């Protein structure tokens, strides 16, 4: 049978790098059952034997406070990997060993991969590997994950460990007289009763009871409530005793003693230093500039702008290729499929829908590459550090800034990669609030809608109105986040106890793997659901078709036009020539007008049209008629559809979102429209339900469809409330002659 080797260690210790080094391309990314924590698996070949390698989430400890830590220890306990490779950062030994000690207490078969040996050497840190191995009672293998040094020896040691039948017993640390006494009492009881036996060592369970570990206490309660109560009582007694005698609690004392244990190991000459240890590392020197009070924000603005520019400028070309490809596919279908519903579904439903999703792929690829660069180099942590004070006011986290910018915080952007960028946030509440508010930013697809309205009604103040729109969306998003964080996602801020990793030059291979993994997940996740929804939307805008007699009516109009035209023009039109005489051109335009009127009638008659019309009673409050309603409904597929659907609803043939001057002119001339309606629609467009690709992503990233649905309902309600308020107040005050 294939043996499992788990990789475990602190964040930034080089786990992913070693994992890639061990498994090469033979890897697979998924999720741990029921949670959104990523699970990476791969295969490592050693002397013809296959080892399954699982990359556990990076953690500093094994408490029940964070999802990652629970996932990691559950895996160790339930899946019982044949051996665990604990990656330890040699340049940061003491803190890394804190996790190692906890693995030892859990009694898992362990060996240490002492990584970053090159960094340690550079900093003048000498580690006596043999002594460390002897003191810890396990193999310790020095490696440099980045270039593969020591990899072979590591794999050999891990395999050796798998073959050794006798496992070393769990480590026993002294936690001081009081705690030791309580532990001994509890351990005896637990062993006697066979409580939670098979899964956890008895002393470990006792420790977790003293630490008030929620998960273990719940497990215990479920398995034997009476016995669990007994243990809890011992724990309470000890806690009370420590509180009265030492003003401390067991949890704190346990941590102190663990670190004390590690210190005592260190003092036995494991580490010796060369040179001046108080001198600044390169990384610290960079930080002096990069997080400087004045330069820091400037550099940050530059970097953010650079990322933005990189993502949206350089992805234009490949995005164009993808669009061209789907355009070509559409033309192919247009030319070769027989006219009818099937053709219409293939073109408007399938090809446009899937094309829309895949059109994002190059964008996402570039964005993830940029983020991976910032993340792997260590800069992203600095951004969080510098901006935390601002974002915290709104219940968010310093790391929320990237998702906001990517979603269109400056102008143009996309909420899909924005939502996915929220992965870099480790605190669950702040992350959820970020996921739910980034869609308020002005993504590239909303811009044509604004451009249309601004051109029609605020032609003189284009730039300032556009700027105002950006400001409104930021204020709205931040206030909405504040609202969510004080209602639905209430709770204290997640502690900002965060490591600032040293700056490191990322490896190109690491970046590519990182980028591709995330992009592929997007394609897989978004692709499946989206096909269904885009067919559904197509059907809503198509069925039911116009009744026979109305179709016949439009046909009659066409015949009349043809009959009244001179025969030469009709003949010329039939040749489908590119260049037409003025007379024929006029004839063609009249025919196109009939087509457009037929399309408008069909749209109004369709299910979407009927919904739009029936909503008119309500939407009038915000100044929207049925045409706007359908357009907004279409905007759920993709925001730029708002423009083209408005075009159809106003009987204009084929409105290109990039070329909206004609539609602009028509809106400006229409008595139903005025600047107030335009503002109302602008506000609605900023805040209403995100497009469905984004909704799918929110659902996936938050791990629940509930939040996807919530974002549709909440955002639309908020948007409607704002639009109605503005429209009604505006009308009341008679401003703009409303």
């Amino acid at each position, binding site marked *: 049978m294939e043996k499992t080797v788990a990789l475990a260690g602190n964040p930034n210790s080089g786990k992913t790098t070693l994992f890639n080094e061990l498994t090469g391309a033979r890897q697979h990314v998924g999720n741990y059952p029921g949670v959104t924590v990523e699970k990476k698996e791969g295969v490592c070949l050693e002397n013809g034997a296959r080892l399954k390698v699982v990359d556990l989430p990076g953690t*500093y*400890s094994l*408490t029940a*406070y964070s999802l990652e830590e629970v996932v990691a220890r559950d895996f160790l306990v339930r899946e019982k990997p044949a051996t665990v490779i604990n990656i330890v950062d040699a*340049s*940061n*030994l*003491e*803190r890394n060993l*804190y996790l190692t000690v906890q693995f030892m207490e859990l009694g898992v078969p362990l060996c240490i991969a002492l990584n970053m040996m090159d960094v340690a050497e550079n*900093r003048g*840190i000498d580690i006596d590997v043999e002594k460390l191995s002897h003191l810890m009672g396990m193999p310790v293998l020095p490696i440099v994950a980045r270039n593969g040094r020591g990899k072979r020896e590591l794999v050999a040691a891990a395999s050796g460990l798998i073959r050794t039948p006798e496992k070393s017993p769990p480590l026993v640390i002294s936690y001081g007289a009081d705690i030791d006494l309580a532990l001994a009492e509890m351990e005896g009881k637990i062993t006697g009763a066979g409580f939670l036996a098979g899964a956890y060592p008895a002393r470990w369970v006792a420790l977790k009871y003293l630490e008030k570990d929620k998960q273990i206490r719940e497990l215990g309660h479920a398995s034997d409530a009476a016995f669990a109560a007994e243990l809890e009582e011992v724990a309470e007694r000890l806690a009370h005793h420590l509180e009265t005698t030492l003003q401390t*609690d067991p*949890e*704190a004392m346990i*941590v*102190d003693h663990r*670190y*004390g244990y590690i*210190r005592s190991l260190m003092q036995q000459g494991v580490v010796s230093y060369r040179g001046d240890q108080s001198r600044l590392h390169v990384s*610290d020197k960079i*930080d*002096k500039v990069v*997080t*400087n*009070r*004045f330069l*820091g*924000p400037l550099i940050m603005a530059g970097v953010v702008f650079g990322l933005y520019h990189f993502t949206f400028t350089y992805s234009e070309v490949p995005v164009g290729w993808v669009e061209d490809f789907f355009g070509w596919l559409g033309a192919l279908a247009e030319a070769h499929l027989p006219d009818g519903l099937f053709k219409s579904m293939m073109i408007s439903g399938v090809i446009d829908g899937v094309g829309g999703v895949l059109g994002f792929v190059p964008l996402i690829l570039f964005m993830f590459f940029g983020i991976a660069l910032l993340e792997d180099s260590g800069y992203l942590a600095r951004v969080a*550090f*510098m901006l*935390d*004070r*601002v974002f*915290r006011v709104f219940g968010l986290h310093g790391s929320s800034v990237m998702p906001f910018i990517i979603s269109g915080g400056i102008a143009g952007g996309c909420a899909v990669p924005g939502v996915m960028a929220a992965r870099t946030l480790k605190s669950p509440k702040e992350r959820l609030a970020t996921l739910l508010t980034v869609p308020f930013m002005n993504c590239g697809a909303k811009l044509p809608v604004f451009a249309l309205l601004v051109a029609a009604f605020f032609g003189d103040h284009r730039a300032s109105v556009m700027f105002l729109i950006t400001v409104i969306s930021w204020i709205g998003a931040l206030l909405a986040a504040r609202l969510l964080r004080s209602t639905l996602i209430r709770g204290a*801020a997640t*502690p*900002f*106890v*965060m*490591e*600032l*990793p*040293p700056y490191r030059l990322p490896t190109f291979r690491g970046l590519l793997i990182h980028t591709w993994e995330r992009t592929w997940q997007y394609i897989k996740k978004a692709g499946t659901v989206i096909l269904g929804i885009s067919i559904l939307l197509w059907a809503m805008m198509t069925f039911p078709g116009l009744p026979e007699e109305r179709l016949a009516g439009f046909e009659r109009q066409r015949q009349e036009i043809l009959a009244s035209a001179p025969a030469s023009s009709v003949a010329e039109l039939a040749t489908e020539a590119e260049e037409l005489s003025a007379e024929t051109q006029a004839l063609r335009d009249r025919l196109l007008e009939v087509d457009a009127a037929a399309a408008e009638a069909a749209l109004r008659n369709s299910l979407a049209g009927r919904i739009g019309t029936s909503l008119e009673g309500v939407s009038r409050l915000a100044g929207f008629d049925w045409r706007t309603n359908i357009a907004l409904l279409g905007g759920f597929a993709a925001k730029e559809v708002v423009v083209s659907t408005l075009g159809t609803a106003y009987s204009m043939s084929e409105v290109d979102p990039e070329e909206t001057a004609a539609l602009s002119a028509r809106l400006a001339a229409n008595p139903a429209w005025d600047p107030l309606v335009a503002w109302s629609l602008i506000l609605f467009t900023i805040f209403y339900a995100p497009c469905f690709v984004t909704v799918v992503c929110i659902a996936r990233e938050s791990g629940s469809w509930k939040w996807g649905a919530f974002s549709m309902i909440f955002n639309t309600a908020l948007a409607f409330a704002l639009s109605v308020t503005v429209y009604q107040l505006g009308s009341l005050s008679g401003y703009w002659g409303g």
Partner: protein
Amino acid sequence: MAIINMRKMAVDQAGTIVDIKVGGELGRRIRDMGLVPGTRVKVQGRAPLNDPVALRLMGFTLTLRNNEADHIDVEVEG
């Protein structure tokens, strides 16, 4: 040698932690990262808006918000 609250420490000032007066999740996270009595820390810098603070301990850099640093008492050097 004075014992002061970590929030009051100046940039580049160093000292040894003497007490951490918070429990629960925050207390645990602070301690798990090595901020326990006896650890030597140095204030490496502060964010542009003065909060959070960056600390150097045991060879790595850790950030902490001021209201989290409030729970930590340090015996400062010199």
